[in-house]
């Protein structure tokens, strides 16, 4: 019963923060950052389900993100599809690809899994880079605005509402998933896959489902980001973006939904703050990565939670 309350409380607080934030932010740029944080957080929450809860590494998730973005861009630009249909098509295609590859990929563990997902992401980004006719090539392509039933979403305020609602939805979904039998099965797999199998959990089926779910969510987030920013480049599907996403998961806190949001927030704001360190941004970023992992290996939110809990004792 207490668990149920805390889940709802967390969601309520998030909703409150999201509602209050635009009133506090001074101008449209800050709202832009908030929107980007929300969109990143959506992907990170889904990725965390895979990495944090189920314990599978993926170094190629930006590939799925990019697939969604480019599906939306190409279908709306070259074929005049309505944006929602393009988004759905992108999500479907990504889901299918993830499903086909999930079984052979998830048989692997540790570094081989990392390598396979890395390879997948890079292949996707190379294809996007090369097929210029559909994707605009390395210089990228512009994306028309998102219109649904005649209403176009434009301007930071409207987009903020969309992003905030989607983030709340994703958070609610994730929290529900974790507290359900499925969630417990996932954590069992993380603890010890063989033990879970012995206990009767169909580990392969669960791993595949989480993999596909996280891929589909990434694709949807990619599509939405594409419409928001209005211009996409192959870099979105690239290795560095995949690493950024994993970093957001790990720094924020593995196996923590709110940790994912914090991780996304921190790493989205960081490049803005690092501009003050002319020339030293890359170094500072690297040092922050190493420092966080060494001193807070579980990630920010779980480490702080642990410290607060032990202090309360």
């Amino acid at each position: 019963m207490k668990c149920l309350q805390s889940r709802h409380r967390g969601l309520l607080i998030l909703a409150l923060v999201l509602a209050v934030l635009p009133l506090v932010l001074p101008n449209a740029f800050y709202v832009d950052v908030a929107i980007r944080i929300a969109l990143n957080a959506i992907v990170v929450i889904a990725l965390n389900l895979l990495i944090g809860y189920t314990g599978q590494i993926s170094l190629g998730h930006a590939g799925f993100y990019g697939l969604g973005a480019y599906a939306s861009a190409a279908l709306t630009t070259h074929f005049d599809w309505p944006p929602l249909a393009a988004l759905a098509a992108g999500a479907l295609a990504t889901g299918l690809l993830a499903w086909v590859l999930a079984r052979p990929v998830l048989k692997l563990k540790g570094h081989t899994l990392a390598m396979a997902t890395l390879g997948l992401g890079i292949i996707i980004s190379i294809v996007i880079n090369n097929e210029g006719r559909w994707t605009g090539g390395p210089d990228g392509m512009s994306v028309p605005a998102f219109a649904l039933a005649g209403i176009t979403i434009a301007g930071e305020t409207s987009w903020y509402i969309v992003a905030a609602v989607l983030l709340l939805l994703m958070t609610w979904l994730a929290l529900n998933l974790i507290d359900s039998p499925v969630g417990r099965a996932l954590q069992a797999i993380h603890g010890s896959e063989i033990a879970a199998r012995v206990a009767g959990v169909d580990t392969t089926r669960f791993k595949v489902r989480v993999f596909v779910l996280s891929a589909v969510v990434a694709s949807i987030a990619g599509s939405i980001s594409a419409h928001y920013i209005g211009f996409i480049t192959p870099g979105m599907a690239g290795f560095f973006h995949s690493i950024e996403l994993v970093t957001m998961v790990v720094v924020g806190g593995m196996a923590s939904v709110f940790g994912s949001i914090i991780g996304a927030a921190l790493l989205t704001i960081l490049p803005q703050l690092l501009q003050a360190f002319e020339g030293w941004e890359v170094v500072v970023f690297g040092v922050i990565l190493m420092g966080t992992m060494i001193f807070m290996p579980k990630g920010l939110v779980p480490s702080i939670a642990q410290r607060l809990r032990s202090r309360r004792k």
Partner: protein
Amino acid sequence: MFNPILKKTVLFAAMAAAATGACAAAASAADPIRIGSVLSVSGPAAFLGDPELKTLQLYVEKINAEGGVLGRKLELVHYDDGSDAAKANSFTKRLIESDKVDVLIGGTTTGATMAMAPLVEKASLPFISLAGAVVVIDPVKKWVFKTPHTDRMAAEKVFEDMKKRGINKVGLLSETSGFGASGRKEAQAVAAKYGITLVADETYGPKDTDITAQLTRIKSAPGVQALFVFGLGQGPAVVTKNYGQLAMASLPMYQSHGVASDEYLKLSGKAAEGVRLPTPALLIAGALPAGDAQKPVVTNYDKAYKERYKTEPSTFGGYALDALNLSVDAIKRAGGTDREKVRAALESTKGFVGTTGVFNMSPLNHMGLDLSAFRMVEVKNGDWQLLK
């Protein structure tokens, strides 16, 4: 379970509020002219963005030392997009909304520029891009201008020279980077105009360490009479080296303006002998005839940059200098920083001598250069020689 989550989110909200408060309070007291700039100073395009930033910083300082513009100082607000177009988009928003700049210079890569363009159009902010692709100014966008030659012009200049020498079958080797891919597209588009057929179309990656396979294929393309390489930085140097290794000197090699730098000569060594390419006047400042309109401008830039940074200036830095000078000139003619007035002044720039060429802008031409802004040079005895 409940308390830590509450504490964390409240803490975060408080931090966010504090941070925004701090940023808002940093308003400037004086009345300077704010030049905003988003450049790729790190990442794969750092080779271009680094001299661009150095140039802007050097000359903003110089202009301020000489009294500023219309009695006001220039203030350069710059951000590094790390060669990421999405970040370029975000920083542009920051420059428009938070820093409230009067003019925007930047967009080192075409991708970054195209991601920034919609924002400046919406905000009605004059924007001078430093990117190469023709798509930046074709179709013309009201608030977007650019200083570099287009990749189409580079292809045309090279094909013009080839046609003169009776070459009509060309093997194309382009880089998979934005610069190379765009160059390839333009080369394919204008080849027929000069009676040229592309009998081979190979690509290489910007960080490739061995390009002999592609060169071998081009070597054996039926009837090939010349090689045209479109890339910049390290890649074309590797191509040149491999070209020497495969003893391909009997096949004339043309390069793009991407290698118009002394670094290319240094890296390629004697294999670069005989290579021909189009270049802005800056590269051959010393070899320009005395009456050349650009000679004083490029010689001054060359001297000033070497004095400050102890290294050769690059033609990419030249793009930034031209953008800055064009902005300053436009602001002077507009009598202030009123955006529409500055834009109109930019659009009516005539006979402006820059390092890249002589600019003649118009409502339909937001770049203002023609083929004469490119000079054809050939590598002779390890140095550049101006071709007539």
